[in-house]
Protein backbone atom coordinates (compact mmCIF):
# COMPACT_ATOMS: atom_id res chain seq x y z
CA UNK A 1 0.00 0.00 0.00
CA UNK A 2 1.36 3.41 -0.86
CA UNK A 3 0.34 6.30 1.30
CA UNK A 4 1.49 9.82 0.62
CA UNK A 5 1.91 10.36 4.35
CA UNK A 6 4.08 7.27 4.72
CA UNK A 7 7.58 7.06 3.33
CA UNK A 8 10.94 8.12 4.60
CA UNK A 9 12.03 11.46 6.03
CA UNK A 10 15.76 11.61 5.49
CA UNK A 11 18.00 14.68 5.81
CA UNK A 12 15.16 17.11 5.28
CA UNK A 13 13.64 15.35 2.27
CA UNK A 14 10.71 13.00 1.85
CA UNK A 15 11.14 9.73 -0.07
CA UNK A 16 8.13 7.56 -0.93
CA UNK A 17 8.57 3.82 -0.65
CA UNK A 18 7.12 1.46 -3.27
CA UNK A 19 5.46 -1.83 -2.37
CA UNK A 20 7.99 -4.46 -1.42
CA UNK A 21 10.88 -2.00 -1.32
CA UNK A 22 13.36 -1.83 1.49
CA UNK A 23 14.63 1.48 2.88
CA UNK A 24 17.88 0.91 0.98
CA UNK A 25 16.08 0.22 -2.32
CA UNK A 26 13.94 3.32 -1.92
CA UNK A 27 16.86 5.61 -1.12
CA UNK A 28 19.09 4.29 -3.92
CA UNK A 29 16.24 4.45 -6.43
CA UNK A 30 15.78 8.11 -5.66
CA UNK A 31 19.43 9.01 -6.01
CA UNK A 32 20.56 9.02 -2.39
CA UNK A 33 24.18 7.96 -2.01
CA UNK A 34 23.40 5.41 0.70
CA UNK A 35 26.24 3.05 1.46
CA UNK A 36 25.84 -0.72 1.37
CA UNK A 37 27.76 -3.90 0.66
CA UNK A 38 26.25 -7.36 1.06
CA UNK A 39 22.54 -6.42 0.87
CA UNK A 40 21.89 -9.53 2.95
CA UNK A 41 21.80 -8.29 6.52
CA UNK A 42 25.32 -9.49 7.31
CA UNK A 43 27.93 -6.75 6.86
CA UNK A 44 26.17 -3.90 8.69
CA UNK A 45 27.54 -1.31 6.24
CA UNK A 46 24.05 0.07 5.53
CA UNK A 47 23.13 0.74 9.17
CA UNK A 48 21.00 3.87 9.69
CA UNK A 49 19.13 5.25 12.68
CA UNK A 50 15.37 5.70 13.06
CA UNK A 51 14.49 8.04 15.92
CA UNK A 52 10.79 8.12 14.94
CA UNK A 53 8.89 5.25 13.40
CA UNK A 54 8.51 1.51 13.80
CA UNK A 55 11.52 -0.68 13.02
CA UNK A 56 10.71 -4.27 11.92
CA UNK A 57 12.55 -6.83 14.07
CA UNK A 58 14.26 -8.41 11.07
CA UNK A 59 15.99 -5.10 10.35
CA UNK A 60 17.78 -5.22 13.71
CA UNK A 61 18.79 -8.88 13.76
CA UNK A 62 22.50 -9.19 14.54
CA UNK A 63 22.89 -5.69 15.94
CA UNK A 64 24.06 -5.47 19.52
CA UNK A 65 21.56 -4.67 22.30
CA UNK A 66 23.11 -1.22 22.64
CA UNK A 67 22.76 -0.57 18.90
CA UNK A 68 19.18 -1.78 18.93
CA UNK A 69 18.39 0.45 21.86
CA UNK A 70 19.75 3.38 19.85
CA UNK A 71 17.25 2.53 17.09
CA UNK A 72 19.94 1.49 14.63
CA UNK A 73 18.72 -0.76 11.86
CA UNK A 74 19.92 -2.28 8.57
CA UNK A 75 18.48 -0.43 5.59
CA UNK A 76 18.77 -3.46 3.30
CA UNK A 77 16.65 -5.51 5.68
CA UNK A 78 14.00 -2.91 6.43
CA UNK A 79 10.62 -3.06 4.68
CA UNK A 80 8.90 -0.08 6.35
CA UNK A 81 5.73 -0.70 8.33
CA UNK A 82 4.82 2.99 8.25
CA UNK A 83 6.56 6.30 7.86
CA UNK A 84 10.05 6.55 9.29
CA UNK A 85 12.31 9.43 10.18
CA UNK A 86 15.86 8.37 9.31
CA UNK A 87 19.27 9.69 10.19
CA UNK A 88 22.64 8.62 8.88
CA UNK A 89 25.03 7.01 11.34
CA UNK A 90 28.64 8.09 11.12
CA UNK A 91 31.02 5.23 10.35
CA UNK A 92 32.82 6.33 13.54
CA UNK A 93 29.77 5.49 15.65
CA UNK A 94 29.77 1.92 14.35
CA UNK A 95 33.47 1.22 14.24
CA UNK A 96 36.71 1.66 16.07
CA UNK A 97 40.26 2.33 15.01
CA UNK A 98 42.62 -0.43 13.92
CA UNK A 99 46.28 -0.25 13.04
CA UNK A 100 47.87 -2.48 10.42
CA UNK A 101 50.77 -4.30 12.03
CA UNK A 102 51.69 -6.66 9.22
CA UNK A 103 50.91 -7.21 5.55
CA UNK A 104 52.04 -10.33 3.65
CA UNK A 105 51.00 -12.33 0.60
CA UNK A 106 49.71 -15.87 1.17
CA UNK A 107 49.12 -16.45 -2.52
CA UNK A 108 49.65 -14.10 -5.43
CA UNK A 109 46.12 -12.77 -4.94
CA UNK A 110 45.50 -13.32 -1.22
CA UNK A 111 46.68 -10.70 1.21
CA UNK A 112 47.17 -11.47 4.89
CA UNK A 113 46.51 -8.44 7.07
CA UNK A 114 47.26 -8.38 10.79
CA UNK A 115 45.51 -5.62 12.70
CA UNK A 116 45.61 -4.32 16.25
CA UNK A 117 42.27 -3.06 17.59
CA UNK A 118 40.56 -2.88 20.94
CA UNK A 119 37.82 -5.41 20.43
CA UNK A 120 37.01 -8.89 21.75
CA UNK A 121 36.33 -11.67 19.32
CA UNK A 122 36.08 -15.38 18.71
CA UNK A 123 38.05 -16.90 15.83
CA UNK A 124 35.66 -17.47 12.93
CA UNK A 125 33.70 -14.26 13.44
CA UNK A 126 34.06 -11.47 10.92
CA UNK A 127 34.69 -7.75 10.76
CA UNK A 128 33.68 -5.04 8.35
CA UNK A 129 36.80 -3.13 7.35
CA UNK A 130 36.28 0.44 6.16
CA UNK A 131 38.32 2.00 3.39
CA UNK A 132 36.57 5.36 3.91
CA UNK A 133 33.10 6.56 4.84
CA UNK A 134 31.50 4.83 1.88
CA UNK A 135 33.25 1.54 1.23
CA UNK A 136 33.22 -1.25 3.80
CA UNK A 137 33.79 -4.97 3.21
CA UNK A 138 33.55 -7.97 5.48
CA UNK A 139 36.42 -10.36 6.21
CA UNK A 140 36.64 -13.30 8.57
CA UNK A 141 39.05 -13.53 11.48
CA UNK A 142 41.59 -16.35 11.32
CA UNK A 143 43.43 -15.55 14.55
CA UNK A 144 42.74 -16.14 18.24
CA UNK A 145 42.69 -13.30 20.79
CA UNK A 146 45.75 -14.98 22.36
CA UNK A 147 47.69 -14.20 19.19
CA UNK A 148 47.34 -10.51 20.05
CA UNK A 149 46.15 -9.44 16.62
CA UNK A 150 43.25 -9.78 14.20
CA UNK A 151 44.20 -11.69 11.07
CA UNK A 152 42.20 -11.40 7.84
CA UNK A 153 42.77 -13.03 4.45
CA UNK A 154 41.79 -10.66 1.68
CA UNK A 155 41.20 -11.92 -1.82
CA UNK A 156 42.42 -9.10 -4.03
CA UNK A 157 40.34 -8.38 -7.09
CA UNK A 158 41.71 -6.06 -9.75
CA UNK A 159 38.56 -3.96 -9.63
CA UNK A 160 37.81 -4.61 -5.97
CA UNK A 161 36.58 -1.41 -4.35
CA UNK A 162 38.22 -2.38 -1.07
CA UNK A 163 40.72 -5.09 -1.91
CA UNK A 164 42.54 -3.20 -4.66
CA UNK A 165 42.97 -0.24 -2.29
CA UNK A 166 44.10 -2.51 0.57
CA UNK A 167 46.63 -4.20 -1.66
CA UNK A 168 48.05 -0.97 -3.10
CA UNK A 169 47.79 1.49 -0.22
CA UNK A 170 47.91 -0.16 3.18
CA UNK A 171 51.22 -0.64 4.94
CA UNK A 172 52.17 -1.45 8.52
CA UNK A 173 51.29 1.65 10.51
CA UNK A 174 48.23 2.48 8.38
CA UNK A 175 45.05 3.10 10.30
CA UNK A 176 41.54 2.11 9.33
CA UNK A 177 38.13 1.77 10.96
CA UNK A 178 36.87 -1.74 11.78
CA UNK A 179 33.34 -2.71 12.75
CA UNK A 180 32.38 -5.81 14.66
CA UNK A 181 32.92 -8.59 15.46
CA UNK A 182 29.86 -10.17 13.91
CA UNK A 183 28.76 -13.69 13.13
CA UNK A 184 28.09 -16.94 14.90
CA UNK A 185 30.45 -19.30 13.10
CA UNK A 186 32.89 -19.93 15.93
CA UNK A 187 33.85 -23.06 17.91
CA UNK A 188 31.21 -24.09 20.40
CA UNK A 189 31.30 -27.32 22.33
CA UNK A 190 28.73 -29.13 24.44
CA UNK A 191 30.34 -32.56 24.18
CA UNK A 192 33.29 -32.14 26.51
CA UNK A 193 35.54 -31.82 23.48
CA UNK A 194 34.76 -35.32 22.19
CA UNK A 195 32.47 -34.57 19.28
CA UNK A 196 33.87 -35.38 15.83
CA UNK A 197 34.26 -32.18 13.82
CA UNK A 198 34.09 -31.77 10.07
CA UNK A 199 35.25 -28.42 8.72
CA UNK A 200 35.05 -27.66 5.04
CA UNK A 201 36.21 -24.61 3.11
CA UNK A 202 37.08 -23.33 -0.33
CA UNK A 203 39.12 -20.27 -1.21
CA UNK A 204 39.53 -17.72 1.56
CA UNK A 205 36.85 -19.62 3.47
CA UNK A 206 39.99 -21.14 4.93
CA UNK A 207 40.49 -18.03 7.11
CA UNK A 208 37.60 -18.52 9.56
CA UNK A 209 37.92 -22.30 9.39
CA UNK A 210 41.60 -22.07 10.32
CA UNK A 211 40.54 -19.90 13.25
CA UNK A 212 37.92 -22.41 14.38
CA UNK A 213 40.36 -25.34 14.14
CA UNK A 214 43.00 -23.48 16.15
CA UNK A 215 40.37 -22.45 18.69
CA UNK A 216 39.13 -26.04 19.06
CA UNK A 217 42.63 -27.49 19.48
CA UNK A 218 43.63 -24.64 21.80
CA UNK A 219 40.66 -25.47 24.00
CA UNK A 220 41.75 -29.10 24.16
CA UNK A 221 39.31 -30.65 21.72
CA UNK A 222 40.08 -34.36 21.72
CA UNK A 223 37.56 -35.73 19.25
CA UNK A 224 38.63 -36.25 15.64
CA UNK A 225 38.95 -33.02 13.67
CA UNK A 226 38.75 -33.42 9.90
CA UNK A 227 39.50 -30.38 7.77
CA UNK A 228 38.53 -30.72 4.11
CA UNK A 229 39.80 -28.08 1.71
CA UNK A 230 38.64 -27.91 -1.87
CA UNK A 231 40.14 -26.14 -4.86
CA UNK A 232 39.95 -26.29 -8.62
CA UNK A 233 43.68 -26.84 -8.99
CA UNK A 234 46.29 -27.75 -6.43
CA UNK A 235 48.05 -24.42 -7.07
CA UNK A 236 45.05 -22.70 -5.52
CA UNK A 237 45.72 -24.10 -2.06
CA UNK A 238 47.42 -21.80 0.43
CA UNK A 239 48.50 -22.13 4.04
CA UNK A 240 49.66 -25.65 3.18
CA UNK A 241 52.76 -25.66 5.38
CA UNK A 242 50.96 -24.14 8.35
CA UNK A 243 48.22 -26.74 8.20
CA UNK A 244 50.46 -29.73 7.58
CA UNK A 245 52.59 -28.66 10.58
CA UNK A 246 49.48 -28.41 12.74
CA UNK A 247 48.39 -31.88 11.63
CA UNK A 248 51.79 -33.28 12.55
CA UNK A 249 51.58 -31.91 16.08
CA UNK A 250 47.94 -32.81 16.72
CA UNK A 251 47.11 -36.49 16.46
CA UNK A 252 43.39 -35.88 16.12
CA UNK A 253 43.67 -33.40 13.24
CA UNK A 254 43.56 -34.65 9.64
CA UNK A 255 43.79 -32.24 6.71
CA UNK A 256 42.30 -33.38 3.42
CA UNK A 257 43.39 -31.52 0.29
CA UNK A 258 40.86 -32.13 -2.49
CA UNK A 259 41.55 -30.66 -5.90
CA UNK A 260 39.84 -31.18 -9.20
CA UNK A 261 43.00 -31.46 -11.28
CA UNK A 262 45.23 -34.46 -11.22
CA UNK A 263 48.59 -32.69 -11.37
CA UNK A 264 49.19 -33.72 -7.80
CA UNK A 265 47.64 -36.85 -6.38
CA UNK A 266 46.36 -35.24 -3.21
CA UNK A 267 42.78 -36.31 -3.55
CA UNK A 268 41.21 -35.85 -6.92
CA UNK A 269 37.64 -34.85 -7.23
CA UNK A 270 35.28 -32.29 -5.91
CA UNK A 271 34.62 -31.69 -2.24
CA UNK A 272 31.00 -32.80 -2.40
CA UNK A 273 31.80 -36.27 -3.67
CA UNK A 274 34.78 -36.51 -1.33
CA UNK A 275 32.74 -35.69 1.78
CA UNK A 276 29.96 -38.03 0.73
CA UNK A 277 32.32 -40.93 0.08
CA UNK A 278 34.66 -40.37 3.02
CA UNK A 279 32.22 -39.50 5.78
CA UNK A 280 29.05 -41.52 5.23
CA UNK A 281 26.90 -40.71 8.27
CA UNK A 282 27.46 -37.34 9.96
CA UNK A 283 25.18 -37.98 12.96
CA UNK A 284 26.65 -36.33 16.02
CA UNK A 285 29.21 -34.31 14.07
CA UNK A 286 29.86 -30.62 14.54
CA UNK A 287 30.06 -29.20 11.01
CA UNK A 288 31.65 -25.87 10.08
CA UNK A 289 31.41 -24.55 6.52
CA UNK A 290 32.89 -21.39 4.99
CA UNK A 291 33.30 -19.98 1.54
CA UNK A 292 31.28 -18.70 -1.39
CA UNK A 293 27.51 -18.67 -1.04
CA UNK A 294 26.73 -21.47 -3.50
CA UNK A 295 29.29 -23.77 -1.94
CA UNK A 296 28.00 -23.19 1.59
CA UNK A 297 24.38 -23.64 0.59
CA UNK A 298 25.05 -26.88 -1.28
CA UNK A 299 27.39 -28.34 1.31
CA UNK A 300 25.06 -27.42 4.17
CA UNK A 301 22.23 -29.32 2.53
CA UNK A 302 24.46 -32.28 1.76
CA UNK A 303 25.81 -32.51 5.30
CA UNK A 304 22.28 -32.26 6.68
CA UNK A 305 21.08 -35.06 4.41
CA UNK A 306 24.12 -37.10 5.48
CA UNK A 307 22.76 -36.92 9.02
CA UNK A 308 24.27 -33.83 10.65
CA UNK A 309 21.77 -32.06 12.91
CA UNK A 310 20.71 -28.61 11.73
CA UNK A 311 21.74 -27.08 15.05
CA UNK A 312 25.18 -28.68 14.68
CA UNK A 313 25.89 -27.08 11.31
CA UNK A 314 27.67 -23.71 11.59
CA UNK A 315 27.87 -21.98 8.25
CA UNK A 316 29.39 -18.72 7.12
CA UNK A 317 28.70 -17.64 3.54
CA UNK A 318 30.86 -15.10 1.85
CA UNK A 319 28.57 -12.70 0.06
CA UNK A 320 30.52 -10.38 -2.18
CA UNK A 321 30.08 -6.63 -2.07
CA UNK A 322 27.47 -5.60 -4.63
Amino acid at each position, binding site marked *: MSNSLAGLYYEGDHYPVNDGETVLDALLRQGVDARYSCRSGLCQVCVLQCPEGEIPASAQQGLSPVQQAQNYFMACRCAPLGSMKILPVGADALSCNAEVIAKEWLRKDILQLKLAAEIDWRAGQYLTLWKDDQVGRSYSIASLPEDGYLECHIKVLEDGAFSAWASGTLTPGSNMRVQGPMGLCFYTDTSGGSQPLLLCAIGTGLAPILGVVRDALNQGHKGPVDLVLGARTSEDFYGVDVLNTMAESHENLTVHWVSQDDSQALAKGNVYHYVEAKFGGLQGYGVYLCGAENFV*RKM*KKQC*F*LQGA*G*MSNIHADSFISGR
Partner: protein
Amino acid sequence: MSVYERIGGEPAMNAAVDIFYRKVLSDDRIAHFFDTVDMEAQHAKQKAFLTMAFGGPNSYTGKDMREAHKHMNLTEEHFNAVAECLVGTLEDLSVPQSEIDEIVGIAVSVKDDVLNR
Protein backbone atom coordinates in the same frame (compact mmCIF):
# COMPACT_ATOMS: atom_id res chain seq x y z
CA MET B 1 0.33 -36.26 27.67
CA SER B 2 0.78 -34.71 24.23
CA VAL B 3 3.14 -36.14 21.65
CA TYR B 4 5.22 -33.01 22.19
CA GLU B 5 5.69 -33.87 25.86
CA ARG B 6 6.06 -37.59 25.22
CA ILE B 7 8.96 -37.20 22.79
CA GLY B 8 10.70 -34.87 25.20
CA GLY B 9 9.39 -31.39 24.55
CA GLU B 10 11.41 -28.56 23.09
CA PRO B 11 14.86 -30.20 23.12
CA ALA B 12 13.50 -33.20 21.19
CA MET B 13 11.77 -31.03 18.61
CA ASN B 14 15.02 -30.15 16.85
CA ALA B 15 15.76 -33.82 16.23
CA ALA B 16 12.15 -34.44 15.15
CA VAL B 17 12.26 -31.54 12.70
CA ASP B 18 15.60 -32.77 11.35
CA ILE B 19 14.03 -36.17 10.60
CA PHE B 20 10.98 -34.59 8.95
CA TYR B 21 12.96 -32.06 6.92
CA ARG B 22 15.37 -34.73 5.67
CA LYS B 23 12.45 -36.79 4.43
CA VAL B 24 10.96 -33.77 2.68
CA LEU B 25 14.25 -32.87 0.97
CA SER B 26 14.66 -36.47 -0.17
CA ASP B 27 11.15 -36.73 -1.67
CA ASP B 28 11.24 -36.04 -5.40
CA ARG B 29 7.64 -34.89 -5.47
CA ILE B 30 8.31 -31.87 -3.28
CA ALA B 31 12.07 -31.39 -2.79
CA HIS B 32 12.32 -28.83 -5.59
CA PHE B 33 10.10 -26.38 -3.70
CA PHE B 34 12.93 -26.02 -1.21
CA ASP B 35 15.79 -25.47 -3.65
CA THR B 36 16.24 -21.78 -3.02
CA VAL B 37 14.93 -21.40 0.52
CA ASP B 38 17.14 -20.54 3.45
CA MET B 39 17.50 -23.86 5.28
CA GLU B 40 17.59 -22.47 8.78
CA ALA B 41 14.57 -20.26 8.21
CA GLN B 42 12.67 -23.19 6.72
CA HIS B 43 13.68 -25.42 9.63
CA ALA B 44 12.32 -22.84 12.07
CA LYS B 45 8.98 -22.62 10.26
CA GLN B 46 8.63 -26.39 10.18
CA LYS B 47 9.48 -26.53 13.85
CA ALA B 48 6.71 -24.02 14.57
CA PHE B 49 4.19 -26.07 12.59
CA LEU B 50 5.24 -29.42 14.05
CA THR B 51 5.23 -27.99 17.57
CA MET B 52 1.62 -27.01 17.02
CA ALA B 53 0.74 -30.35 15.42
CA PHE B 54 2.36 -32.29 18.27
CA GLY B 55 0.34 -30.41 20.86
CA GLY B 56 3.09 -28.10 22.06
CA PRO B 57 2.87 -24.39 22.86
CA ASN B 58 2.35 -22.36 19.72
CA SER B 59 0.87 -19.28 18.10
CA TYR B 60 0.32 -20.79 14.71
CA THR B 61 -2.51 -19.42 12.56
CA GLY B 62 -4.10 -20.82 9.43
CA LYS B 63 -3.65 -17.43 7.82
CA ASP B 64 0.12 -17.90 7.93
CA MET B 65 -0.25 -21.23 6.12
CA ARG B 66 -2.37 -19.77 3.34
CA GLU B 67 -0.15 -16.72 2.79
CA ALA B 68 2.98 -18.81 2.80
CA HIS B 69 1.78 -21.33 0.23
CA LYS B 70 -0.66 -19.57 -2.07
CA HIS B 71 1.86 -18.55 -4.70
CA MET B 72 3.07 -22.11 -5.17
CA ASN B 73 0.02 -23.67 -6.88
CA LEU B 74 0.19 -26.80 -4.78
CA THR B 75 -1.80 -29.94 -5.53
CA GLU B 76 -3.21 -32.84 -3.55
CA GLU B 77 -0.15 -34.85 -4.51
CA HIS B 78 2.16 -32.25 -2.93
CA PHE B 79 0.10 -32.17 0.24
CA ASN B 80 0.00 -35.95 0.45
CA ALA B 81 3.75 -36.15 -0.01
CA VAL B 82 4.31 -33.90 2.99
CA ALA B 83 1.74 -35.83 5.03
CA GLU B 84 3.60 -39.05 4.23
CA CYS B 85 6.85 -37.49 5.43
CA LEU B 86 5.07 -36.51 8.62
CA VAL B 87 3.74 -40.04 9.17
CA GLY B 88 7.18 -41.49 8.49
CA THR B 89 8.70 -39.12 11.04
CA LEU B 90 6.19 -40.12 13.70
CA GLU B 91 6.83 -43.80 13.00
CA ASP B 92 10.58 -43.21 13.34
CA LEU B 93 9.85 -41.61 16.71
CA SER B 94 7.78 -44.67 17.77
CA VAL B 95 4.64 -42.64 18.26
CA PRO B 96 1.59 -44.94 18.68
CA GLN B 97 -0.79 -45.24 15.72
CA SER B 98 -3.72 -43.53 17.46
CA GLU B 99 -1.63 -40.43 18.03
CA ILE B 100 -0.25 -40.54 14.52
CA ASP B 101 -3.86 -40.45 13.33
CA GLU B 102 -4.58 -37.50 15.59
CA ILE B 103 -1.62 -35.53 14.29
CA VAL B 104 -2.44 -36.32 10.68
CA GLY B 105 -5.91 -35.02 11.48
CA ILE B 106 -4.36 -31.72 12.53
CA ALA B 107 -2.35 -31.57 9.31
CA VAL B 108 -5.46 -32.27 7.25
CA SER B 109 -7.25 -29.45 9.04
CA VAL B 110 -4.90 -26.94 7.36
CA LYS B 111 -5.11 -28.59 3.94
CA ASP B 112 -7.48 -26.01 2.46
CA ASP B 113 -5.19 -23.21 3.65
CA VAL B 114 -2.11 -24.87 2.18
CA LEU B 115 -3.84 -25.57 -1.14
CA ASN B 116 -5.46 -22.12 -1.11
CA ARG B 117 -9.00 -23.49 -1.55
